[in-house]
């Protein structure tokens, strides 16, 4: 009888001590964590993969291929390419409310922190003087083609935003930027 109680007391102590050692820099115990119910057999999005030379699962697309849903963009990332896009590239989307609404939503996520919600170059980063040199859209002679080109490749200090947006979203943003610009020019 006494033994049982002694053991019980020890167990109680041990358990309460185990609570004290819980720190948030390491994961908690995970029962069956090593089985394939918990840890996938397949390769995970950001995991490692021994089959590739750089050991990563996330690979850039093979040159010359495009992923599903993407539209290849053939104009080169050069000054001539910019001029070509400026003059010839046209939007495949019709201007309507749905496109403009999504364009606005996407613009708000990806462009406002620099260009400001009105497109006047007064985004939060500019106002806080973290990132300078953002133009007002009305001061630039831009067309839908050149805006698309700039989203694809960036220009000078602006970086490319192609990887964050699908083709359709880019054109929707272009539509919305055009609208902002006409509003600014008024």
């Amino acid at each position, binding site marked *: 009888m006494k033994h049982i109680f002694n053991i019980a*007391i020890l167990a*109680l102590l041990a358990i309460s001590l185990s609570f004290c050692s819980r720190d948030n820099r390491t994961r908690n115990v995970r029962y069956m964590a090593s089985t394939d119910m918990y840890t996938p057999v397949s390769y995970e999005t950001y995991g490692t993969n021994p089959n590739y030379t750089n050991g990563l699962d996330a690979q850039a697309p093979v040159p010359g291929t495009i992923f599903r849903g993407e539209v290849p963009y053939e104009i080169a990332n050069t000054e001539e390419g910019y001029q070509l896009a400026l003059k010839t590239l046209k939007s495949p989307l019709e201007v309507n409310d749905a496109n403009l609404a999504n364009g606005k939503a996407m613009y708000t996520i*990806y462009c406002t*922190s620099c260009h400001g919600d009105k497109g006047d170059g007064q985004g939060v980063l500019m106002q806080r003087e973290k990132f300078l*040199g953002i133009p007002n859209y009305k001061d630039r002679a831009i067309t839908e083609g050149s805006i698309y080109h700039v989203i694809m490749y960036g220009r000078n200090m602006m970086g490319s935003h192609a990887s964050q947006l699908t083709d359709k979203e880019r054109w929707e943003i272009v539509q919305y930027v055009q609208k902002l610009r006409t509003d600014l020019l008024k």
Partner: protein
Amino acid sequence: MKSVKKHSLVNKIIYLSLTFLLFLNFNVSGQTGNYDKGKQLFNVNCAACHKLDKKLIGPALANITDKRSKEWLHAWIKDNNALRASGDADANALFKEYNGMPMMQYPQFTAQDIDDILAYTSGKPKEIAQNTAVAKVDPKVAEGKQLFQANCAACHKLDKKLIGPALANITDKRSKEWLHAWITDNNALRASGDADANALFKEYNGMPMMPFPQLSADDIDKILAYTSYVEVKADVTQSKDSNLAKPKASTAWMSIVLGLVLLLVIVWIFVKSNNGFLKIAATIFLLFGIAYLGFGALFQVGIDTDYQPIQPIQFSHKIHSGDNKIDCQYCHSSAKHSKTSGIPSLNVCMNCHKSISEYNGPVTSDKDKAFYDGEIQKVYDAIGWDKDNTAYKPNFEQVPVKWILVHNLADFAYFNHSQHVTVAGVTCQTCHGPVETMEEVKQFSKLTMGWCIECHKTTEVKMKGNGYYNNIHDQLSKKYGIEKVTEAQMGGQECGKCHY
């Protein structure tokens, strides 16, 4: 004769007024220009390619007026193509140096605009420097600081030995006359046989300090005022931040003490007491206690609330999304279309960090500017960006940053971000907590099945404006006889939706 005289009078007036105008004109263009307006113009038009102190796409422009004449600068900024075409040697050399990268033309600028910009590139006028740089401080100190930084800081610091000794409160150690003599010409002072001066020279292994005959007595006083001035580091933001960073005072010790006392009492009952009732009561209490704690421990298995691993780069969501209001989806851009939210690849970081190479925000006591600058440098090291030349290093093999995953569901449960973020319109914070206030991300929710189901039971499905639901909504609202449908009623607690 008369007519000539009259003529000359008219002429005289014209000449006079002309010279007056010229004088005025000269005055206008000779004036320094408006610093603040110049700064605005510069930030909007030039800062994309130029910085004051660093090469960006174009050359650094601080004090460019020392290097080029004013006429040249006006001509260049207005229309650099024309200037080059006119055969100007400097302009063409510059163009070649920058690999034929053309700068834009600014024909719309007036001469005044350009003067304003040039005033900005020449640095802050003194009055402004005083009341912004070191606010609420003796103007002498502010000027002294400038002088110190321009002339002395290469070899001296206030608080640390650099090439020369630390200079804080040097006036306590040496007399004013001695200091003046030393700073103006320390060679002469040594030659005059001054003992202190010679001892110092020996202590620093005969490393001579430069003489500064150009500094006036007044300048030297200002510098000395600066070295005696102790900067009050109690910034408001700073003290607030360090408060936040401190862990909350723990009350855990109280329960530990209480537990130990109880334990001792129980042990005493079993060992010493002969009272049967007490023994039974203690036994029951002990069993319940063990059961309670035991189950508590078991329920912790696999639950990682507050898990906060040490990341390879201390990326602060507070600075990015809190202070600078960058949208979550700017970086986690796949949340809107796919199962995973994704961790941004480094090219996304570089959209901003090509330009932002150092941290100038508020700091806390344990994380100073050097710490944050070092963290930004890690991004550069990984992607191979040379911040001094502002270009990617050629043939650099990028090293991926090995972020440590915080949120991780077991493989048998399926969770999709786009279903919740895009379709349901749930904000990130509902599940991930106030990420924009976290220096380091931690897991906010429990991520248990109960947590998922609880929300599905209480959250209404947004059916309006979603064509997919047009039919389903009618059917479901008929079936349940209600207008609003929760996710659970739509099947959000069927096992197969999450386990398959």
